[in-house]
């Protein structure tokens, strides 16, 4: 900040001090309010305050209800009531009088009435209805000030149901000659849009008119509506980008009247608002919308050079926008420089904002962190915890397999000094996430131990759960699993030998489970010794009864040998008469099982993978027997309730019917979560843009499910890094084996050669923190794996495993490149159909595909690229071998100045063929387009609702410059579903074998006799299901996911809905399918 500004800032506060000159014009210190305030200021205790306020309230109450109180007095009373409520004492008796004041008062009295209403009532308060008439009257008033007041209160709060009553009047005000009325009318409409968007749907063109209003204030007001609408549906407003750019250009260029300036910066908050809107429009953009923004962004960066906080605020928004929209290299460079200035600033507020910006951009370009590594290190040691915290947030985003140990250590250091519960919970979750993402035996266990002891009982419950899950499911190698478990047992035994009563309950539960499960691995450890340790824990008085039942469970697993049995007996005797029923149950189990080793080994088999049959299919025999014996079939609770409601002649529970519906929607969201979660988790909590890519807007659990593998986090960022790589100053190629020291030398921060000792320490820290940032990304792009032997990865069977797929993909990157290379060479050089071989595409064109669905559930088999005989396509005819089959519409994916890429898919029997056409578009001779067709076959490995394929085409122009284009294509699971033809008998047999199932009620298509047939036909048509048989009100349907992964569906018409029961051997398949069924029926 310049000195002059600094001086004005320090000058102002002195004006605000208490020792003021008496006799200031509007001071009413002699009034009753004055007395109240003075009284309160002089008080010393809370108790006195309460007494005083109660007195005050009593006196207000008496006066407001007196018929002789004038409106002027009423106004004063209301201000006093506002004051009392501000201090936390309810004055609900005055609410009705506030409305009365708004109704009957004039000028300032009326305004205070409205103000009191807006402060006292919330939007759903019933008294608000009484305001409607007053508002209606004031809107029609000839006094502009009254109109103004009414519009102000409407834009703050208004009962939703009454909007239609005043909407025409508000709309009418949009044409008012006074700007202030038009502006307030727009703000009122904005409020309506917020609380009831469908009520103002018909006036969207009026919003446009407001946007084009000749008064800048009215235009500014309309931006709030647009910001909201664009956030909800950016693609619908792309055409407005040019208008927003034009507005911003005028603002930046100083075309607004002078009174819009703030410290000689033209309308800064308006600029910020516009920049936000632009970044919403340009997010995930295929270049066209972003392109029109480049110039004005450049201009904004250039203009905002004045040295004042507000220009920095604008710059921050500008940088964020530049990194959100489609990248442009020179802008990115300027933005990066700008961030540098922020981070290096001695002003702490700027430094904070710089770190925040850096945290945002490293998700796009992790190398940017390298440039500022020394500053980041300094911020890590900053005395202000806020700065430290923000730095950790930044480090969290750049964590990789090589620096995870150091970063986690830093986070744990912070945790030990942090006193804020909220921070602890948040940070503990992040540490656990990192530790589980890059596990390596001892370190992993040690880190988790700290997490459990620091996080205590505050942390999210899924942290211990996923830790135990991880431990039990194990990793790739049995050896390593054993080592890990052994280490855990070791460390827990020594913890229990120490002072276990200091440990949090959750940790004790984890410890008892692990000891119960794995202490046998340590041969020299007697089970009886462990039992005694656990028994000691039981006697500790802090141990909660939940923990006690965990301990008893563990003891049940351990009571081996004579010594063990005797400890077990002792313990079970103590607890078999416990008042806690769960504990008593456990104690009895322990007692019984300890005496019966054979049964125990059957019930609690050692080292057996835990398999839970959630469908309880093992009970099927029992159920059919019972049914045959005449038992009533099982009905889920919601169905029972439904029937109950119907059975009653007069239902007293009118909303009972809605329950199944809400439950069903709930369960859908729930079931989708595994896939969605894995997307967002890999990228950490609040990276909204990336998690949006996965299509998840519904559910953001605080869950810590992970994407596994040593490339985990970076694997998904490949495309983004590719984009950011253009900015980088060309650096010499580096081999992946190069280590941190090399990075250090590469960093652009100048490092003096003779370094004093602390400096050296810092540099060491830097090299360990930023290791792998630059080399890592380039390596993973080339599809080679990095040698990091100490990390091991999770077994493929685990549901969130993805690494095997990702590796396959990266390998395929390499091989498919060559195939396609050849293909395209042939294509362009040898084919006679092309009159002129296109000059712009030369021999190097490679296309690579990866799946972007965080879970990597699509398997790409690249060899299906149609070998040696490439087929040419003209216009939109599909390649010959596929011509017999139906194909989807050809959708353009992306394009740049020299090529267009479009894609369509063809449903083959066993796989989905993805045909992509590469056409080069910018050849002078437009009549002969060079076209290349690549075909990929896609199969789904693990079902999810949608599958997204992302990829990159890179090619070389004759001039020698490499170009690349990224694309992504989203496919619904239904593209992979095929009918399965089976007979009813076969169906029956299969039904019993399958374990993954899901039940739900769907809506029927029509209510006639044939509704079942009609509904099933819709599903058959839309989802390619095979209807096996329809008997009466029941129908059975079968389909498969194109390999041999069947899914069976049983439908029954019941109470106007279709009760559907799906079963499949494949997890998640029933859930995904039911989602599509629901969609199909909704769309119908």
């Amino acid at each position, binding site marked *: 900040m310049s000195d002059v500004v600094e001086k004005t800032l320090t000058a*102002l506060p002195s004006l605000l001090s208490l020792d*003021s000159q008496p006799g*200031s014009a509007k001071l009413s210190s002699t009034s009753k309010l004055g007395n109240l305030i003075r009284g309160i200021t002089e008080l010393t205790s809370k108790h006195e305050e309460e007494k005083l306020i109660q007195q005050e309230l009593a006196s207000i109450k008496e006066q407001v209800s007196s018929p002789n109180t004038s409106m002027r007095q009423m106004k004063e009373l209301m201000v006093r009531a506002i004051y009392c409520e501000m*201090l936390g004492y309810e004055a609900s008796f005055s609410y009705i009088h506030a409305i009365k004041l708004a109704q009957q008062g004039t000028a300032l009295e009326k305004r205070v009435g409205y103000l009191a209403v807006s402060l006292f009532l919330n939007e759903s308060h019933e008294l608000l209805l009484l305001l409607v008439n007053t508002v209606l009257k004031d809107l029609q008033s000839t006094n502009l000030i009254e109109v103004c007041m009414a519009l102000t209160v409407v*834009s703050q709060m208004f009962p939703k149901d009454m909007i239609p009553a005043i909407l025409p009047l508000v709309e009418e005000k949009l044409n008012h000659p006074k700007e202030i009325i038009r502006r307030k009318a727009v703000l009122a409409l904005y*409020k309506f849009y917020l609380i009831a968007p469908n009520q103002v749907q018909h006036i969207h063109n009026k919003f446009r008119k407001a946007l084009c209003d000749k008064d800048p204030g009215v235009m500014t007001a309309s931006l709030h509506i647009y910001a909201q609408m664009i956030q909800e549906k950016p693609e619908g407003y792309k055409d407005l980008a040019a208008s927003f750019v034009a507005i911003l250009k005028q603002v930046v260029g100083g075309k607004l009247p002078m009174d819009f300036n703030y410290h000689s910066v033209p309308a800064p908050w308006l600029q910020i608002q516009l920049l936000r809107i632009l970044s919403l429009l340009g997010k995930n953009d295929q270049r066209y919308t972003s392109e029109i923004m480049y110039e004005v962004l450049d201009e904004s960066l250039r203009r905002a050079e004045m040295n004042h906080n507000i220009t920095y605020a604008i710059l921050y928004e500008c940088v964020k926008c530049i990194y959100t929209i489609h990248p442009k290299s020179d802008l990115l460079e300027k933005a990066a420089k700008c961030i540098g200035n922020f981070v290096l600033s001695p002003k702490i507020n700027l430094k904070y904002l710089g770190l925040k910006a850096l945290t945002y951009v490293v998700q796009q370009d992790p190398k940017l962190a390298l440039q500022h590594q020394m500053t980041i290190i300094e911020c890590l040691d900053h005395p202000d915890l806020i700065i430290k915290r923000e730095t950790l947030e930044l480090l969290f985003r750049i964590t990789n397999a090589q620096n995870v140990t150091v970063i986690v250590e830093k986070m744990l250091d912070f945790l030990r000094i942090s006193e804020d519960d909220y921070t602890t919970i948040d940070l503990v979750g992040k540490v656990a996430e990192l530790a589980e993402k890059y596990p390596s035996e001892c370190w992993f266990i040690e880190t988790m131990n700290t997490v459990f002891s620091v996080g205590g009982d505050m942390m999210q419950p899924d942290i211990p759960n996923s830790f135990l899950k991880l431990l039990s499911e194990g990793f790739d190698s049995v050896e390593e699993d054993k080592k890990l478990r052994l280490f855990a047992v070791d460390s827990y035994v020594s913890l229990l030998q120490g002072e276990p009563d200091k440990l949090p309950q959750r940790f004790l539960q984890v410890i008892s489970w692990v000891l119960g499960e794995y202490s046998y691995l340590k041969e020299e450890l007697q089970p009886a010794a462990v039992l005694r340790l656990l028994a000691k824990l039981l006697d500790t008085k802090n141990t909660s009864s939940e923990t006690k039942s965990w301990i008893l469970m563990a003891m049940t697993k351990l009571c081996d040998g004579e010594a063990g049995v005797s400890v077990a007996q002792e313990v079970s005797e103590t607890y078999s008469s416990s008042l806690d029923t769960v504990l008593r149950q456990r104690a009895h189990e322990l007692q019984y099982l300890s005496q019966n080793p054979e049964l125990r080994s059957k019930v609690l088999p050692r080292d057996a993978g835990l398999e839970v049959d959630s469908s309880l299919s093992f009970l099927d025999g029992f159920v059919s027997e019972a049914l045959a014996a005449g038992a009533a079939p099982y009905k889920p609770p919601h169905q029972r309730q439904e029937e109950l409601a119907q059975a009653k002649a007069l239902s007293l529970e009118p909303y009972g019917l809605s329950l199944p519906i809400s439950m069903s929607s709930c369960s859908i969201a729930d079931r989708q979560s595994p896939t969605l979660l894995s997307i967002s988790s890999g990228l950490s909590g609040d990276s909204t843009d990336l998690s949006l890519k996965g299509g998840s807007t519904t559910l953001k659990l605080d869950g810590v499910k992970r994407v596994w593998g040593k490339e985990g986090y970076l694997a998904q960022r490949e495309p983004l890094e590719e984009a950011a790589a253009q900015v980088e100053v060309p650096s010499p190629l580096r081999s992946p084996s190069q280590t941190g020291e090399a990075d250090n030398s590469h960093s652009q921060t100048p490092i003096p050669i003779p370094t004093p000792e602390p400096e050296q320490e810092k540099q060491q820290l830097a090299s360990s923190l930023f290791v792998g940032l630059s080399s890592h990304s380039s390596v993973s792009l080339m599809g080679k794996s990095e040698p990091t032997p100490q990390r091991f990865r999770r077994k493929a069977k685990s549901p969130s495993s993805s690494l095997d797929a990702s590796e396959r993909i990266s390998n395929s990157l390499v091989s498919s490149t060559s195939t396609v290379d050849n293909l395209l060479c042939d294509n362009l050089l040898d084919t006679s159909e092309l009159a002129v071989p296109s000059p712009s595409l030369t021999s190097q064109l490679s296309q690579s595909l990866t799946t972007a669905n965080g879970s990597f559930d699509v398997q790409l088999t690249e060899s299906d690229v149609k070998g040696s005989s490439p087929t040419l396509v003209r216009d939109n005819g599909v390649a010959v071998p596929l011509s017999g089959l139906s194909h989807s519409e050809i959708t353009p994916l992306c394009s740049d100045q020299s090529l267009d890429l479009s894609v369509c898919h063809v449903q083959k029997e066993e796989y989905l063929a993805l045909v992509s056409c590469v056409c080069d578009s910018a050849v002078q001779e437009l009549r002969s387009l060079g076209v290349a067709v690549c075909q990929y076959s896609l199969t789904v490995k693990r079902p999810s609702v949608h599958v997204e394929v992302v990829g990159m085409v890179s090619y070389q122009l004759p001039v020698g410059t490499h170009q690349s284009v990224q694309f992504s294509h989203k496919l619904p699971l239904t593209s992979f579903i095929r009918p399965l033809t089976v007979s009813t008998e076969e169906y029956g047999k299969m039904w019993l074998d399958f374990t993954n199932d899901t039940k739900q009620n769907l809506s029927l298509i029509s209510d006639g006799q044939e509704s079942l047939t009609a509904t099933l036909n819709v599903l058959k048509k839309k989802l390619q299901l095979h209807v096996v048989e329809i008997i009466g009100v029941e129908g059975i349907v079968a389909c498969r996911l194109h390999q041999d992964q069947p899914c069976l569906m049983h439908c029954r018409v019941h109470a106007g809905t279709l009760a559907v029961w799906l079963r499949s051997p494949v997890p998640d398949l029933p859930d995904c399918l039911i989602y599509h069924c629901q969609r199909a029926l909704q769309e119908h």
Partner: protein
Amino acid sequence: MIKFMLMVNRQGQTRLSRYYTPVELSRRAVLEADVVRCCLTRKKDQCSFVEYKDFKLIYRQYAALYIVVGVTDSENELSVYELVHNFVEVLDKYFSRVVSLDIMFNLDRVHIILDEMIQNGHIVETNKSRVLAPLTALDKMADS
């Protein structure tokens, strides 16, 4: 988005509070005390932005008076920091050299000014003369 705006004195007494997201009356006093503790304990050379639960506090001190604004994480901290100053400048213009007694004794007017600037948690007007226009018109009506 702005969640609330508070004006408190050094003793932690609330001088003005305005909430833009519903907070029950009974919980406000606790929240305010907590927020004030967060900000008042900080030193001059420390950052003016504080993390508080899942949102951020932005505070600015004017002699004995602190203005604290609670915002969501997506908000631009520095722009809100300057908004606070703009608000104070508007008050200064209206009360011609504002002192904290003005704010205490004219609670209603300060609220009316604030209502012109922030609505529903969004900044709706920052142009000083436009912010003051409705209030000065009301004053004129009362005078005549």
